[in-house]
């Protein structure tokens, strides 16, 4: 290790210490305001109480987590598949791209969850399908945008090399277009995973069966059981984080060794 390198070690450690320190400070302040000073409104529970509720009710929390997580995953999978197919079509056929572009741009900016009541009417209020549909639409947009970009990202010099080597369309796709697009697909999936979880959760506020993390949070928050509501919130965060970490890991594995 060179002399200059030795100076970098504490810097690298600081990268990890800084966020942990900030988190601890936030936690300490929270605890101070609620448990020591008793200065918080009833809607803000004590962190200690939240942990207690998690310990007491972890089994039903996990059950509801399962429902919301399933909805999110189904939505993610369906949305991603449809997005890949449509992006491939849009990259190949200009008219399809022309028709899809404004629709996708519109979907990206409208509040998708506003469609949930309609979907629940269409598919029946006892079905999880409305929520899965919403999650699918929400997940569709980032995957579509990123895959389309990835499919267009082949460099002209590489295309020339393959053309000069006499490769046909399918070979070019397999050898060049697909590997080029893969990192973009994974980036899209990573973004879509977080969005799908939030969409599945928020969709629960707009109707459907009385299960899932979202309905639990809403009903417990409204009825004043703040600590239990936050215990469910912890469950929701857990789903989101796990999915995000899995997708990030996948993305890192695939893009290993590639120049940015």
């Amino acid at each position, binding site marked *: 290790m060179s002399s200059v390198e030795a100076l970098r070690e504490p810097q690298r450690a600081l990268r990890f210490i800084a*966020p942990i320190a900030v988190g601890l400070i936030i936690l300490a302040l929270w605890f101070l305001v609620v448990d020591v000073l008793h200065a918080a409104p009833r809607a803000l529970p004590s962190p200690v109480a939240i942990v207690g509720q998690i310990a007491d009710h972890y089994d039903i929390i996990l059950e509801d987590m399962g429902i919301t997580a399933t909805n999110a995953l189904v939505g993610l999978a369906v949305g991603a598949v449809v997005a890949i197919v449509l992006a491939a079509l849009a990259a190949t056929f200009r008219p399809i791209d022309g028709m899809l572009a*404004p629709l996708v741009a519109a979907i990206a900016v*409208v509040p998708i969850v506003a469609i949930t009541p309609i979907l629940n009417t269409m598919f*029946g209020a006892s079905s999880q399908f409305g929520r899965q549909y919403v999650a699918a639409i929400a997940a569709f947009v980032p995957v579509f945008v990123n895959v389309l970009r990835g499919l267009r990202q082949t460099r002209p010099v590489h295309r020339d090399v393959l053309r000069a080597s006499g490769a046909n369309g399918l070979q070019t796709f397999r050898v060049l277009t697909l590997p080029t697009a893969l990192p973009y697909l994974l980036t899209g999936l990573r973004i879509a995973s977080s969005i799908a979880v939030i969409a599945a959760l*928020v969709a629960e*506020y*707009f109707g459907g069966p009385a299960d899932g993390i979202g309905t639990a949070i809403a009903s417990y928050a409204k009825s004043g059981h703040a600590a239990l509501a936050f215990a469910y919130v912890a469950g929701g965060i857990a789903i989101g*984080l796990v999915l995000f970490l899995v997708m990030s890991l996948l993305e890192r594995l695939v893009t290993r060794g590639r120049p940015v």
Partner: protein
Amino acid sequence: MSRSRAAIAWGALGVLAVLVAWELYKFLGPADGLVVGAVAGETGSGVMILPRTNDRAMPHIWDMVARLFQSASGGDTPPLIVPVVTAALTTLGIAAVGWLIGVAVGALLGLVMQRWRLAEWGLLPWIVVSQTVPLIAFAPLIASIGSQVDRAGTIPWPQWLSVAVIASYLAFFPVAVGVLRGLEAPDRIHLDLMKTYAAGYWPTLFRLRLPAAVPHLLPALRLAAANAVVGAVVAEVSIGMRGGIGRMLIQLAGQGSSDPAAPWGPTFGSIALGLVAAGSVALVGLGLRNYRRGEATV
């Protein structure tokens, strides 16, 4: 035909295709929808992947449009479109306030994080995690703090302000990240140039980093606007605020069995809301056109 006119034409065709697909499915699709995995004799089993085609579940498009111009709740009440537009504008106003708050907070965070590496390391992970906390969890908290402040009398705090604050929670994140990335975007060579001019932090910020940040800032502002709309709608529902489009969505959905075309009114209103919000921000982008020269076109 010029390129932009062709683009608009294809876009209109796309929307038309969706409408045609809807009516075509109504005409040709299975009356009871497509259910997968149903067990004979057990009603309600299986998963319905395609909806029923009757007029209750899927009203005709012309019925949806016509309903907008019929009275809202029977008798002499004005056509449905009036309360829908009123509610949409109300929510738009609240979302706009939420957007402004979110942009201010996000920009400040972005500036601080770019200035001090330590702040970026300490704060950014928490900012990212903050977006995984569902709004509904602390909406009542903000609302109760808001009403306490209002009752204390020092500053008036109407209910919609709580909604705006909650909406700003979703809006600040893309701005914070966008400002951070944008301020760090200038080329090494431009930073070196500023160093050779012995320009300090503030001149470099105003003459180099901020202009260079514009291409990153505009998509962030657009995303923040869309997020502020979603946040406002969700917050309205969770606090139970009257007058906004969120509440109308839930209300009319409850009457869905007797008045199937009515819920589509506020639904169209929400869609229009999102489009107007994003479009307004795009106008800001037009004014900043010179700062986007050299932007990579995707």
